[in-house]
């Protein structure tokens, strides 16, 4: 069977409590349950290389920085392949600028190289799985695109940043995030930024987001709803 884009490699399922981890906004001292940690450890058990999580926070009115930091510390503790670096955005302007941090909290996932995978907002609810998978997959060998898709990607005139606006309760969003992250891993021309719309009202209004998932390619093409892999690749090419 041809390998191509098989989201099945991402389909490791975690237990239910993890899916809704952190739904309680008031608690910041603990996000994951002990059973969540057991499942995540299993997921991370065959990680290959090291992965750095670069967390950007702010003291200036950040909705979920504290809880996101708690979660990142917990994730950091679940594999010796993962290391967490936390930066106050205002005190580390140069580093924030290097990674083009527009919102906080932001988590940049850096594996064997910086693949351009970034998360804005607390990756809770249904986003937790694609987020954890992105950490794991950043430690593995790059996915290999099929010949047909490689040919299309080769025609991209310039790099494309894919912004995926989601909410933590959207059932169709995780697959779109997984797909974009997959292409970010596979091609240096693609970067993927996931934005929790429910946390960033103003930013979502700026892009006139009224529905999720909404995907914006290179600030040029905006598409609402799920899309096929074929359409996704075509938009990558046309927006480059």
């Amino acid at each position, binding site marked *: 069977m041809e390998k191509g884009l*098989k989201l099945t490699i991402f*389909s490791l399922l975690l237990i239910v409590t993890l899916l809704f981890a952190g739904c309680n906004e008031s608690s910041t001292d603990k996000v994951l349950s002990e059973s969540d940690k057991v499942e995540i450890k299993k997921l991370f058990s065959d990680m290959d290389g090291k992965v750095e999580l670069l967390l950007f926070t702010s003291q200036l009115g950040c909705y979920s920085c504290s809880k996101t930091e708690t979660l990142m510390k917990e994730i950091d503790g679940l594999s010796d392949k993962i290391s967490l670096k936390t930066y106050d955005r205002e005190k580390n302007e140069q580093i924030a600028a290097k990674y083009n941090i527009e919102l906080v909290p932001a988590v940049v996932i850096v594996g064997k190289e910086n693949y351009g995978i970034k998360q804005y907002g607390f990756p809770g609810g249904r986003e937790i799985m694609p987020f954890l998978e992105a950490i794991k997959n950043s430690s593995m060998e790059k996915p290999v695109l099929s010949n047909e898709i490689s040919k299309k990607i080769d025609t991209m005139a310039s790099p494309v940043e894919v912004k995926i606006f989601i909410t933590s*309760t959207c059932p169709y969003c995780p697959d779109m995030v997984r797909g974009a992250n997959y292409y970010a891993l596979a091609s240096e021309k693609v970067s993927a930024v996931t934005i929790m719309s*429910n946390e960033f009202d103003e930013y979502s209004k700026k892009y*006139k987001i*009224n529905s999720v998932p909404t995907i914006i390619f290179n600030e040029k093409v905006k598409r609402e709803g*799920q899309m096929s892999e074929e359409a996704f690749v075509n938009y990558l090419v046309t927006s480059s």
Partner: protein
Amino acid sequence: MDVFDVAILGGGPAGISAGIYAARFKLNAVVISNSLGGTAQSAHLIENYPGHSAISGFELMQKFKSHMKSFEVPVIEKHVHSASKENDFFKIKLSDEEVKARYILIATGTKRRKLGVPGEARFYGKGVSYCVTCDAFFYRDKTVAVVGGSDAANMAAILLSSMAKKVYVIYRKDKLRGELVWIERVITNPKIEVLYESNVVEIKGKDFVEGVKLEDGREIPLDGVFVEIGSIPECCCASDLGIEINQKGYIQVDSSQKTNVDRVYAAGDVTSGSNGLQQIVTAASEGAIAIKSIFDDIERSKVTLWKKD
């Protein structure tokens, strides 16, 4: 290329249940679906699946997927383009590969029915939505309408009422239908107003939805419209293979889930089965029945071959 015993087209409750039963019957099966979990995932609350007094559709389908995964059933997460019959097997064309199987089980479910009124397509993502669990958040303290009067519409209205300022339910008949539990919650909710015997004829606005026009001429100012008017069957490959479709557009099956075409079965919401009751519990049941029927068919064919020899 391997030839599977059965290719299960669709990964909703019927397809996943079929995958589990195929593994139990030791059939060499593959599940092909570009949306594993299916439309059931978008139900925000399920209160009638035995064993779970209240569970979200997403959570329940995670459990389904996890269960199937434990049997190591191969899954190909791709769209099925077409299928053709070639002597002893079927050839199923996907986006960039082909799969061969001796039997096909169609469990492709349904897709959302659209209103088909002016403004609906134009304002999709700009105030028109088909997914309450995805987009309810965008309507905090706003005025929205749910078009429809079934369980899905009633559930959508309840969920929206927890965020929106005001929720209209716009329904063409003189009373809501579906489970009485949901109806009671809708009609007793102070934020919800049901507009009976009302049909939306146009969705209006400039850049975003600003309201709807009803058949009787009334105009209701709104920030969003959620369309919940049922679904239509996704009869994948039916015309390719000459499968009989009933008057309502569903694949005609007998009590063994068999279609009119030899070695082609169908299960779940895409079929005429279960007396038209389209539920997760009936879809899962039909998936199981279909696999048992296929297993019996394979066993019978082995006996026939042996007798011929």
